[in-house]
């Protein structure tokens, strides 16, 4: 049968209301300044002519019918490549509030056509699921009479945590007396800026973060550390005193490690720690993916690769024959590189097999901790299906691991760190402290920091989330100078400081009513409650209603 080509409908033909975001444009307010069309990261908007019917109401006139006028208006592209992402930049720049995106309340048909040219749908950002179990946790064990609640404003609080292997007391005392090696530890703020690479983030973003972190440490005495992600960091940073605020990540592509190893003799101080990435919550089983749009000249130089090529890291480390072997080899090698003065720990994606990894680390005397990244983690680029449906929620995964350590009496030896969805709906301190009370020694935050410190537009309703394409409208995840010059590193630094000062205050506001001030309430599960009975049972905390 021959298709009727005169009807403009192919299988993938979409109209504007098949798309996830629909642009509403008010012609009466539009002055045709063109700012929206030029800012739109996906070039979704174009000026075009519209024809409008002008009904004639003159009853007595002989001539009946309508007249028409032609005017210039905005039209949104219906091709997937140029679809509206809902970022809202057009509304931000419009001087007359004439335009803006609205979520399509109907099911968007576009999703059925997102696989194109034989490729599955890839995107950056987050999982697009507003549900957060962490948001449901509440702190119920309020000190009332015997032990009055503390004054969050005036009392002194010890808020820091320890990153690094801690010996059992007997062994610590023995080694001290014998003058033997004591594993390195760091006293850090329990909210850590999670691994986002210098390639995924723009130079302005990355340096703004580092500047803010340095200010927190040096002026405010909040010992925040940030993780580099895969891809190293600029050589001047490696040789600067700021290195001590950085956790250097090594991942399966080993990107950036040539520069790091070469810089070791010139380092003024040791890095905060080394993170070996085995997995990531947003895309378990996938290696890193820096898409070619983002491999600029600078990034290519840092990573030692040609410009403008896709940089997929292998899903596993080349050394990975078995976890035991890999963990042992890599932890030991990297410890040795800094003469056993730097904590080295692995990062894995949340998984039902996390306990097996953990038990392995318990037996490895050089392992300094374990970071578990849950399914709600973010990413610069991943397959949709990995992000949405692959991985393990963090709360129960962390809790299982912690209780496993408790049963072995090892909970003080291997600190657990949790990540993935901390602050996804904005409740960063509540989420983080919830995880700490479930047993984490600290939490890593990524997306939250982008949102709070740099104004990232993404949200859990799939707004924006084009971090993979190098077109980030805020200049956060782009290597295009035209875009990242929109982001002022000083302003990012200022926001980083605001964020951590806010978290510090909120931590006190959580700890004070619980009567806690002398140490971070790691594992204080008696303080937690949740209004979801199965979840309470699963997490072994109190059900409250």
């Amino acid at each position, binding site marked *: 049968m021959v298709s009727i080509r005169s009807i403009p409908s192919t299988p993938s033909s979409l109209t504007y209301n098949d798309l996830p975001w629909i642009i509403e444009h008010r012609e009466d307010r539009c002055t045709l300044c063109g700012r929206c069309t030029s800012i739109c990261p996906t070039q979704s908007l174009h000026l075009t002519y519209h024809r409008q019917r002008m009904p004639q109401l003159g009853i007595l006139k002989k001539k009946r019918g309508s007249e028409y006028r032609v005017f210039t208006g905005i039209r949104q592209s219906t091709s997937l490549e140029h679809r509206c992402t809902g970022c809202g930049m057009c509304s931000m720049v419009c001087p007359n509030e004439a335009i803006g995106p609205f979520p399509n309340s109907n099911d968007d048909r576009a999703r059925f056509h997102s696989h194109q040219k034989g490729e599955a749908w890839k995107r950056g950002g987050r999982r697009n699921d507003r549900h957060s179990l962490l948001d449901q946790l509440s702190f119920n*064990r309020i*000190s009332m*009479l*015997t*032990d*009055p609640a*503390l004054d969050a404003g005036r*009392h*002194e609080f*010890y808020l*820091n945590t*320890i990153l690094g292997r*801690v*010996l*059992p*007391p*007997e062994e*610590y*005392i023995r080694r*001290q007396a014998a003058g033997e090696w*004591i594993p390195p*530890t760091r*006293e850090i703020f329990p909210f850590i800026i999670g691994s986002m690479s210098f390639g995924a983030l723009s130079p302005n973003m990355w340096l703004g973060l580092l500047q803010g972190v340095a200010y927190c440490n040096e002026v405010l005495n909040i010992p925040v550390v940030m993780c580099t992600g895969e891809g190293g960091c600029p050589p001047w940073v490696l040789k600067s005193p700021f290195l001590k605020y950085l956790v250097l990540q090594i991942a399966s592509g080993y990107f950036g490690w040539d520069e790091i190893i070469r810089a070791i003799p010139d380092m003024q101080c040791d890095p905060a720690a080394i993170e070996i990435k085995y997995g990531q919550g947003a895309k378990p089983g996938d290696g890193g993916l820096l898409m070619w749009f983002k491999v600029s000249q600078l990034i290519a130089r840092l990573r030692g690769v040609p410009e403008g090529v896709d940089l997929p890291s292998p899903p596993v480390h080349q050394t990975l024959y078995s976890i035991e072997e890999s963990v042992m080899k890599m932890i030991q090698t990297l410890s040795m590189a800094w003469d056993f003065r730097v904590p080295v720990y692995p990062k894995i994606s949340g998984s039902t097999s996390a306990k097996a990894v953990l038990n392995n680390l318990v037996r490895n005397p050089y392992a300094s901790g374990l970071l578990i990244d849950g399914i709600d983690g973010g990413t610069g680029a991943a397959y949709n299906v990995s992000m949405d449906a692959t991985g393990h929620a963090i709360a129960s995964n962390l809790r299982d691991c912690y209780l496993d350590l*408790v*049963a*072995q*009496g*090892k*909970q*003080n030896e291997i600190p657990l760190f949790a990540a993935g969805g901390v602050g996804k709906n904005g409740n960063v301190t509540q989420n983080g402290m919830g995880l700490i009370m479930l047993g984490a020694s600290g939490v890593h935050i990524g997306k939250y920091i982008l949102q709070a410190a740099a104004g990232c537009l993404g949200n859990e309703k799939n707004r924006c989330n084009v971090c993979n394409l190098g077109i980030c409208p805020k200049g956060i995840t782009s290597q295009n100078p035209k875009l990242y010059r929109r982001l002022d590193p000083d302003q990012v630094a200022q926001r980083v400081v605001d964020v951590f000062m806010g978290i510090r205050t909120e931590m006190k506001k959580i700890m004070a009513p*619980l*009567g*806690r*001030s*002398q*140490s971070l*309430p*790691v*594992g*204080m*599960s*008696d303080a937690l409650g949740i209004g979801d009975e199965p979840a309470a049972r699963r997490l072994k905390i109190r059900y409250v209603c």
Partner: protein
Amino acid sequence: MCRLAMKTAAEPFSPYTVLQAMEAMQEGYDGSGLGLLLRGMNFADFNYQAGEPILSGIAHSEAALHRLNQMLQDRGFTLKYDHEFQVRPELIEAKDRHKYFLRVYKQPLSWKEWSREQVENELMLTRLALREDGLRDNDLTVFSFWPDVAIIKEVGWPLQVGDALGLADNRITSRICMAQGRQNTNYGINLYACHPFFIQGVGTMTNGENTAFVPIKEYLTGLHRPGYVGYQSDSEVFAHILHYVTRELKLPLEAYKHVITPLKTEELEKHPQGRFLRGLRDACRRMIIDGPNCVMGSMPDETCLLLMDTKKMRPATIGGRPGEWAMASEMCGVDAMIPHRDKSLDFQPMRENTVIVPAHRKEFVIWSQFDPYPLHRAA
């Protein structure tokens, strides 16, 4: 909040005098319990020999007492003295107290060759076995089984409990008496939840609430030491930590305060042994308490100690004169125990202090966490 009173004197005295003193602090407890720990025992009706284990507890039924006798007999203990309390049951709230026992036993002959450590472990294991046996039907409560130490715990108003057990009759005296009047708070009324807590010669009692209880309990339980069980009260961990620090880690007594309330990082940076203490703080991080608490304790060599949590929201005081010293959670308690003393020498420990009354009782000593730490001295 509970009230604490403790007296240590070269001359043995009746525990009843401490109970009378506790009346001065009566607004602080609600009659939900009294606990007494006596150390340096002296019986009017029996010539007690140092080293003989004393078993303290309550049998709630004839059958339980019978089982107890059988178990001890099976293990080779011989009863030497069974203190008969002049009980006035009408003064006791609980109705299932078949017999309060305070008995001196002779160690099994087979233990003769054993090291001290072996003997001490076996004594603890015997107590734990009895305790476990009693928990099955809740008909036997065992507080301690240790040389030179007796423990009495009962629900009720402290002085009334003293009258009920005839403690005023001077037939039992001791050189140290620790007493706690209980204010029931979070946890159910349970005899095992009464202070003082005791393990292998180490006894402590506390007031206030330790909000870090659950993580500390999990940590101590995870050490898998047979004696670290119970935890019907959040304060039991204080005794176990003191035991762990001095007996297991073999650290000097000074280390206790560094473990439960370590100095801040900036303070440790200036401390002469700051590096060691910082590592100790990290290694023992799960035992950091979160008061406010006042802790009083006594050690096997009759050293007594008094210390506060770091928040220091408690007015605990020590006062006395050479030969006798009293500590109480409130100053009026000290006044009642040793009224004629030079009050200007009274002392209220600050957050960094541990007050020690050595066994010679000539004076008390004030340690500060800022002082050099005796790195090379063991417990």
